[in-house]
């Protein structure tokens, strides 16, 4: 944005990404306004986390603190987590149950729908002080987000220009959410990971099926995910969301050895796990897909890796730091053995995940290496240039270009020839 850090998109197919978008504070500020408060739907939480009236939890949309609750009528609400009086964080706990929300600073209290209930000493004391005569508490409500729930997944938007949620997600994403939430779920717990990189670097990471079989040696070595397996990347019509999928056991030794030739460190067929139970997939769906990484623009990933299910919420901290918030779940009717299996497989991902621990490291090392060369570009060509469309192989990073096509539209960045004149 600034003269020192020109943001230029020289290729109309978004195959060059300016490093400045990962570093520049002005870009970050604008993203908070036009992406996270723009016409997008942000993942907030799961309804299963708020089963009872009065249940609440606090999350972030971008870097805005947001309070989500369920009212007496069973309806979900979300508000900016800030008192309308002097701006204090209204609710400090991560999670809880309460009949109302009371600000610790001056005890202003709000009902579960966000209406101001009361202010202490409204008439002051001895005829002095208190609220002015024209103060009407009915005028004061917490600043609300618009909410839509689909299959128990709660999304919120700050914008009244957002299309309806189902249209925003599109039929490809809807069918994956239907699959993952085909019966009632129960939450197993949370994990949090501080990642020292820009929030978009993580979005890039999950839209890059290619790295899954190369960076994550555990995957390739132990066979859960290899680039030689049946899989691909499904995009929605706008290319902004992505579904990476594969089916384990669909590779053969020859194709795998050939593909991984020259990367002997990645695929090491001689190693075997002492306890291979963690690699076992118990089929739960009407297909043979064993891995789904569904990324919804701009802030959530839904995951199935064998029987390990979770959501990953991207929370911004600054241009060069983010928190990844993981919510693991199983199904309500899981046997205790199945719950144990899911807990065992939780070892595969998260900050200590045998597969995924690398992602935090990769993102940080990109962030560190690009700082001084913000006018340079990342090269995104694997899977081909030009049209952004669904991919029939895992050796692709086309979904990254899909993300930036919508990103540039929202940010108002010109792309292509015009954008290359700097």
């Amino acid at each position, binding site marked *: 944005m600034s003269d020192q850090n020109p943001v230029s998109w020289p290729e109309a197919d978004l195959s060059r990404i300016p490093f400045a978008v990962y570093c520049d504070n002005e870009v970050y500020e604008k993203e908070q306004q036009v992406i996270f408060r723009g016409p997008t739907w942000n993942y907030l939480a799961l309804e299963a986390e708020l089963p009872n009236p009065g249940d609440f939890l606090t999350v972030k949309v971008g870097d805005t603190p947001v309070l989500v609750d369920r009212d007496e009528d069973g309806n979900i609400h979300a508000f900016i987590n800030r008192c309308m009086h002097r701006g204090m964080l209204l609710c400090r706990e991560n999670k809880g149950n309460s009949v109302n929300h009371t600000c610790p600073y001056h005890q202003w209290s709000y009902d579960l729908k966000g209406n101001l209930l009361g202010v202490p000493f409204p008439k002051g004391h001895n005829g002095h002080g208190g609220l002015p005569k024209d103060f009407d508490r009915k005028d004061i409500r917490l600043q609300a987000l618009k909410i839509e729930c689909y299959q128990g997944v709660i999304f919120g938007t700050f914008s009244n220009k957002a299309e309806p949620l189902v249209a925003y997600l599109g039929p490809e994403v809807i069918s994956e959410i239907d699959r993952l939430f085909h019966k009632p779920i129960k939450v197993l717990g949370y994990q949090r990971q*501080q990642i020292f990189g820009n929030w978009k670097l993580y979005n890039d990471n999950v839209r890059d099926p290619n790295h899954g079989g190369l960076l994550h040696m555990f995957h390739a070595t132990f066979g859960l995910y290899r680039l030689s397996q049946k899989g691909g990347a499904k995009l929605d019509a706008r290319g902004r969301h992505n579904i990476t999928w594969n089916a384990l056991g669909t590779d053969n030794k020859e194709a795998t050895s050939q593909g991984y030739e020259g990367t002997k460190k990645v695929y090491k067929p001689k190693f075997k796990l002492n306890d291979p139970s963690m690699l076992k997939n118990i089929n739960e769906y009407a297909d043979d897909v064993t891995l789904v990484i569904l990324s919804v623009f701009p802030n959530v990933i839904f995951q199935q890796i064998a029987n390990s299910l979770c959501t990953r919420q991207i929370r911004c901290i600054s241009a060069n730091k983010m928190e990844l918030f993981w919510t693991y779940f199983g199904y309500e009717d899981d046997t205790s053995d199945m719950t144990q299996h899911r807990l065992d497989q939780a070892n595969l991902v998260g900050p200590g995940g045998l597969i995924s621990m690398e992602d935090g490291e990769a993102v940080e090392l990109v962030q560190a290496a690009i700082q001084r060369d913000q006018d340079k570009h990342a090269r995104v060509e694997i899977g081909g240039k030009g049209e952004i469309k669904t991919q029939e192989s895992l050796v692709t990073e086309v979904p990254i270009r899909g993300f930036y096509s919508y990103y540039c539209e929202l940010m108002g960045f010109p792309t292509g020839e015009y954008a290359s004149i700097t």
Partner: protein
Amino acid sequence: MISAKVRYSIENLIADYAHYIDDDRLEEWLDFFSEDCVYKILSRENVEQALPLELLSCRNKNMLRDRILSLREANIYNIHFDKHILGAVRILGVKRGDYSIQANYSLYQTNLDGESMLFSVGTYRDLITFSNNTPLFKEKIVVVDTFGISRLLSTPI
């Protein structure tokens, strides 16, 4: 009354456990566990909500061996040195010859530029058994206060 000899053995085990991690002797470190051991790292956030999810969980020694195998052969993680600082050991009780103990730790990590940072603070809640007069961890449960994991969790805590 816990005998001085038992206390001495338990404290030695806990000190060895930490120093073997810090010295990157993880293959030998496995010998501090019984074959039916449980090794878990729990997030305080989940413990307080009675949620079962762990940050890391090995329900037998083979799973623990696999963790070390994966670290050595398959994982890419931030290269660092670990340094454990241990608090006083409380022996909470003994049941059928197994001792339950509690001890706080802090764990610093130092990167290749020589910068150190506090990586994790928390509490060990362990069950220690004696086999041929040698103390072994039957359960090593690490409850981390630092549940917002900085970067990633690779080497054991």
